[in-house]
């Protein structure tokens, strides 16, 4: 069974810790929702899990997952989709061509939905012939999320996936995530809005927020007020 174990994970930029140390475990069919105020390190955590940032400390261990070559997957990036704040779609290219590109680039095996079915699952009409740049912000977000369905992967790493979505679209996407979990997938999502995942585990990064930053191997935390006072003496 697919399992992701995070042990003593501290994330940040360089040696500056944004969040951590964190310990959690997600198994097939489970969702983990990461919450916390702006600057708490939610995006940094997800980018680290996706392999876009190196961890400051700790490790991410995955078990029971196969990569494209049939060997055991060593990194989460090999078996996961990452949806960041940006849509990763070319504005001058049609929605269909954009999705075709991601199907060819990201598919680990067959079994993905057709472009039309993927868009329909997210409540969009058949917009495959329209340039991506012509769509509204909410439509663009949904068309971008359709790549999760055209190129199936076990783990979805989602950073504010419902940003720009209306209430109906949020419900639709909640159903899509529910089906992914029912099929044995894992969802790791950061959000400020409810995602409709009632059974999801919660990871609140609030404790590490509010301007608090540490340096790896350093002593106690210094908050921004103390820093400003210290700078006043210099």
């Amino acid at each position: 069974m697919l399992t992701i174990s995070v042990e003593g994970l501290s994330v940040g930029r360089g040696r500056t810790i944004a969040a951590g140390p964190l310990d959690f475990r997600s198994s097939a069919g489970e969702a983990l929702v990461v919450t916390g105020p702006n600057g708490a390190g939610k995006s940094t955590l997800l980018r680290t899990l996706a392999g876009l940032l190196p961890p400051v400390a700790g490790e991410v261990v995955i078990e029971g997952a196969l990569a494209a070559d049939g060997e055991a997957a060593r990194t989460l990036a090999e078996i996961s989709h990452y949806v960041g704040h940006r849509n990763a779609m070319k504005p001058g290219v049609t929605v269909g061509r954009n999705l075709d590109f991601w199907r060819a680039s990201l598919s680990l095996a067959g079994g993905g939905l057709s472009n039309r079915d993927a868009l329909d699952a997210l409540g969009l009409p058949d917009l495959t012939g329209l340039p991506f740049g012509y769509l509204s912000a909410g439509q663009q977000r949904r068309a971008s999320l359709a790549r999760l369905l055209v190129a199936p992967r076990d783990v979805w790493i989602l950073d504010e996936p419902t940003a720009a979505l209306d209430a109906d679209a949020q419900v639709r996407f909640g159903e899509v995530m529910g089906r992914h979990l029912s099929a044995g997938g894992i969802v790791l999502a950061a959000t400020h809005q409810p995602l409709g995942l009632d059974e999801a585990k919660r990871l609140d990064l609030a404790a590490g927020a509010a301007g608090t930053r540490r340096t790896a191997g350093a002593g106690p935390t210094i908050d921004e007020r103390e820093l400003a006072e210290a700078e006043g003496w210099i």
Partner: protein
Amino acid sequence: MKALGALYLRDLRLAVSGGGGAMTGVIFFLAVVATVPFGIGPDLNLLSRIGPAILWIGALLSALLTLDRLFQADRDDGTLDLLVMGRTPMALVVAVKCAALWTAGGLPLVLAAPFLGLFLALEPTAIAASALTLLVGTPAITFIGAVGAAVAVALPRGGLLVSVLVLPLAIPVLIFGVSATYGAVNDPEPFMPPFLILSALTLFFGTLGPVAAGAALKASAD
């Protein structure tokens, strides 16, 4: 392989379509070469003597025009994150993107060179030699440019930095490209040694460039 093929075709389409700007290089090349005779005057001997150098300088500057955008759009829209995450090594991704850029921007320069050689009163031998050396040498400029573009991708105004980084490395390509062309036209000067060095430079940068650019892109992924 399917992923690399899809990337090549997508980048080629983007470069050729309106927003890609690949034709900007050809138009700039035309402008440079067409204005030189007006500046130099009606001395056909002088024009034909410096013609190969003008073609090469025009091609080099034209290639620089499109280089700074090689990875910028992918970074801006989030595509670069997914390419870095992907199972395809970044060096291969960069090599394919360079191949697409060269096909859309470099190859038209090579094809335009014989026609523009007529503007400069070049002999048929000089025209053929210029086209051949450009065919072999312009990929090197693209690969060198990829490193500069990758280093500058995270910077708000990286275009100038790309030119500053790329020009010193591209000068040897220019020198041996022009030397080989002159070698084909002027009897005592040899053609093969500078041409082989030019080929070696392209192979060297074609191997090293994508690896270095891939490493720079991975480092800029945060």
